[in-house]
């Protein structure tokens, strides 16, 4: 049986290898970017996402569905980004300022400067607030899916989001 979800062929008969290949094609880059925004470390981001795909490969027997698999991947990426943030190597890279990000060439200098200021402020937020903001404002997920990815209640998502925005505002005003 083959159905189409968001333009992707979902075949109940996929084995784990086929599923991982299809999921990779459709979602790998987006998930790496998600992890990079959570981690502010693009080196670690790919590792985290690859870990999540390996986990999904193992879990495919239970998932058997692209939407479930994507939710699982996202939750795993968020969860593992949290773990990765605790790792010393990440902290050290941050201390060196080497986060592996490419210099931005595609945007104007003003946008870039403002983006840098916002991203620096975002980095200073507590992890939960940063997760809520990235999932909501970059991944454009509805509240319920943010809650699922973060493994918290919808009420907590509201709290983290509003506190995150307030802290961001304060931080940006301080910079000015």
């Amino acid at each position, binding site marked *: 049986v083959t159905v189409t979800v968001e333009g992707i062929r979902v075949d109940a008969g996929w084995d*784990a*290898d086929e599923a*991982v*290949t299809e999921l*990779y094609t459709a979602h*790998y*880059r987006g998930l*790496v*970017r*998600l992890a*990079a*925004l959570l981690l502010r470390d*693009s080196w670690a*981001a*790919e590792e985290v*996402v*690859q*870990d999540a*795909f*390996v*986990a999904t*490969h*193992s*879990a495919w*027997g239970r998932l058997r569905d692209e939407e479930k698999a994507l939710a*699982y991947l996202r*939750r*795993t990426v968020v*969860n*593992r980004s*949290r*773990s*990765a943030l*605790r*790792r*010393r190597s990440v902290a050290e890279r941050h201390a060196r300022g080497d986060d*592996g*990000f*490419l*210099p*931005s060439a*595609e945007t104007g200098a003003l*946008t870039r400067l*403002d*983006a*840098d*200021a*916002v*991203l620096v402020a*975002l980095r200073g937020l507590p992890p939960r607030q940063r997760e809520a*903001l*990235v999932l909501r*404002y*970059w991944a454009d997920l509805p509240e319920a899916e943010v809650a699922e990815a973060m*493994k*918290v209640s919808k009420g907590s998502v509201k709290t983290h989001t509003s506190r995150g*925005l307030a802290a*961001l*505002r304060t931080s*940006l005003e301080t910079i000015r």
Partner: protein
Amino acid sequence: MNDELESRLRDALRVGAERTPIAGDGLQKIRSRTAGRRRHARWRPTLAAGALTALVVAGVAAAVERDHGDRGTDLVLPAAPVTTAPTATATASPTASTGPTGCPSMDPSLLPGCHVTATGVPKDTGGEYISITSPQSGGVVHHTFTVSGRARVFESQFTVDVSQNGMVIKTAHVTASAGAPELGTWSTTFTLPDGNYRIDAYELSPKGDGSKVASDTVWIQAGSPPGPPQATAATSSANAR
């Protein structure tokens, strides 16, 4: 006012996302890792809940690794100055909830002086659960070795840290063969230079406060060939090889 901030945030996140370099070899890396996992697929137990306890008590391990075995033997790390614990074998039940008795405060900085004695695997009370069944605490392992155990954790995912002198030096994100409420099996492989290490398998609380909802810890030595638990002999023969 919030609208403006939200708009700035969206722009900044888009810029940040676009800056992320992405290597082109992700799929190959994933495939190389999943290829190694295929043989584990057949472990996945689909057990009726009622059968779980009996199986655990019987010590039936679905995860059969090369040197799999339940912990429960008194061992002394080679570098440990023998102080209190006997080196004689004392078999503990695999379900016993005894903690490490010879490693006061379980402080990794005590290694290599830490004296490790019988460490039973944590007691499975049916909730979130992680145990390390191999290697045994105090065991001597090859540089590349497999850590395996059982787990009943959310979405079958948890973390295994290797630390030395209080510093985490390696972290593996592990997926058990089944997620809660099923009891799954798991294994992960590390390659470590000579030395004494602490291995922590744990699931963090979803509360995000850093607390652990399930964990198990073993201390091992890497580098010397696995041999009988006579530590001194193992150390001296290591140099000969």
